[in-house]
């Protein structure tokens, strides 16, 4: 566990770009790694892989259902396919195929959904995946990952390829603060504690992990000691980490996703099963967003460190 030193959060690359780099690296090491994309390869960064391995890249056109089905067929024949598109398209339009052709037969397909959440900005709600985690978690056997930065993303792409079975990885559009030292190792199903604290624990993932760290610093200046953990592995969840978080007596969960069906409710299930304590949820509350800059949207929809800190104060007021 790290000491509570002040974090210098430098802006790194977008997690989607880190995915593209990691995929190309994997491609060099393993000829069974293949990729399919649906006319968004420049945005999902699978184009790096496509350029280097044109024979192992299958352009599917704007047809996500078929894309997921083709990936399942490639996997059934021994390949390790990565199927990438915007999360809102691959998960929503490919959901039936993720269910029947991937989850049900436990096929070795890796789905990567980029452009998650409101932080894509101007393109608006039709392009913003705010329910992808919920949908992916509803599929038995799926591993569901939401890395916070480029370091974790690269490790998770590798972990996904090594894991035998369906995986969904969520990636973001904007450049993202770097939380981890380069080359750090991670395990699926194991949370990363970013900060110690005794008054409450903040559990976050994706770009909310950096916001949680900033919130914890703000809270510290107010005399509140907040622990922070990165719950990049939404499924399987790290139950031990949740029990440890609950031992502080109060939990805030923060995610760039609809609160319904997201990380928060999954954590809450573990909390009520093990050691009930007050919880607050930072996320998108039963609505669709709109067009604006990412910063304006994170502000308007309550996804800043300020909102995490407010939730922390609220949950502390309920703590017995």
């Amino acid at each position, binding site marked *: 566990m790290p000491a509570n030193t002040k974090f210098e959060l430098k802006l790194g690359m977008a997690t989607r770009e880190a995915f593209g780099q990691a995929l190309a690296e994997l491609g060099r090491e393993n000829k069974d790694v*293949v990729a399919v994309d649906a006319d968004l390869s420049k945005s999902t960064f699978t184009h790096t892989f496509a350029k280097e391995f044109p*024979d*192992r890249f*299958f*352009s*599917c*056109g704007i*047809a996500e*259902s*078929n894309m*997921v*089905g*083709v*990936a*399942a*067929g*490639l*996997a*059934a*024949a*021994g*390949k390790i*396919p990565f199927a990438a598109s915007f999360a809102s398209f691959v998960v929503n339009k490919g959901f*039936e*195929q993720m*269910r*029947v*052709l991937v989850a*049900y*037969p436990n096929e070795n397909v890796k789905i990567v959904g980029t452009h998650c959440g409101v932080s894509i900005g101007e393109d608006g709600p039709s392009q913003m995946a705010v329910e992808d985690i919920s949908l992916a978690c509803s599929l038995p056997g799926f591993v569901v990952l939401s890395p916070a930065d480029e370091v974790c993303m690269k490790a998770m792409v590798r972990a996904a390829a090594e894991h035998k079975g369906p995986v969904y990885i969520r990636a973001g559009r904007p450049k993202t603060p770097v939380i981890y030292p380069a080359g750090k190792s991670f395990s699926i199903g194991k949370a990363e504690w970013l900060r110690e604290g005794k008054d409450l624990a903040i559990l976050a993932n994706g770009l909310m992990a950096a916001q949680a760290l900033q919130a914890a610093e703000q809270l510290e200046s107010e005399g509140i000691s907040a622990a922070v953990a990165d719950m990049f592995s939404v499924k399987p969840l790290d139950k031990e980490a949740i029990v440890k978080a609950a031992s502080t007596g109060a939990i805030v969960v923060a995610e760039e996703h609809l609160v319904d069906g997201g990380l928060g409710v999954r954590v809450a299930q573990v909390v009520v099963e093990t050691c009930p304590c007050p919880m607050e949820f930072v996320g998108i509350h039963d609505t669709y967003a709109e067009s604006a800059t990412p910063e304006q949207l994170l502000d308007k929809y309550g996804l800043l460190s300020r909102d995490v800190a407010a939730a922390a104060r609220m949950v502390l007021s309920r703590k017995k």
Partner: protein
Amino acid sequence: MKRTNNVEELRSICKQTRRRIIEMTGAAKSGHPGGSLSAVEIVVTLYYDIMRHDPANPRWEDRDRFILSKGHAAPVLYAVMADCGYAPADQLNTLRKLGSPYQGHPDRRFLPALEASTGSLGQGLSLALGMGAAAKLDAASWRTYVVLGDGECQEGQIWEAAMFGAFHKVDNVCAIVDYNKIQLDGFVKDVMELEPFADKWRAFGWHVIELDGHSVADLQKAFQEAAAVKGRPSVLIAHTVKGKGVSFMENNPKFHGVAPTPAEVEIALKELQ
């Protein structure tokens, strides 16, 4: 297992397969006899003559793959796979019962020799093309066969897949449409017309062969022709009769998804002597 390219022997196996379909669905008291009976010659010709496979080695890497995308016709596949030795023949009448290898729709968890779990229409062609693409990458010689329903071709995903297959020249895939002209709600032409059906496939870049789907000899010839076509996938539009072989089931939409009663089983088995 018995392999043969003798038309008379294959026809005799077809008759036996039809009897099993009637017995199974009769015992299950539910299921889809009509679309199972229409696909008998297609499945039998593939398994006993055309396909390269070995029941003693079901995971043989170079085997040809078979996907029943119209998964509701599971009884025809079960009858054939059991006879080939992939599954216990003495359990065919446990169809649709708890714990049976013969689930309502093909389920690889219960019958591992299946290539695919199917049942949600529209998906098998994509799966087949993914398999075919993988075989081409590996420069492998195995082929993939996928049986589609006609009603199933109303699904948009079929045409997404059709575009993919031609664009990527997945010529080791052969689709077979069991064109029996009937779906659950009635006749295809009244629910959602497919015609001009062959033209649609041609326009999507496929090699199209139209044939009588109950003629074993025509099927043998068509499969050989398809295997020789390079640069694009092939589709057999197999004109068939729903409920084929049982007088009161033929062309009767009722028997899409209704099992025969014990009395009907008796009559049907007599007709299939």
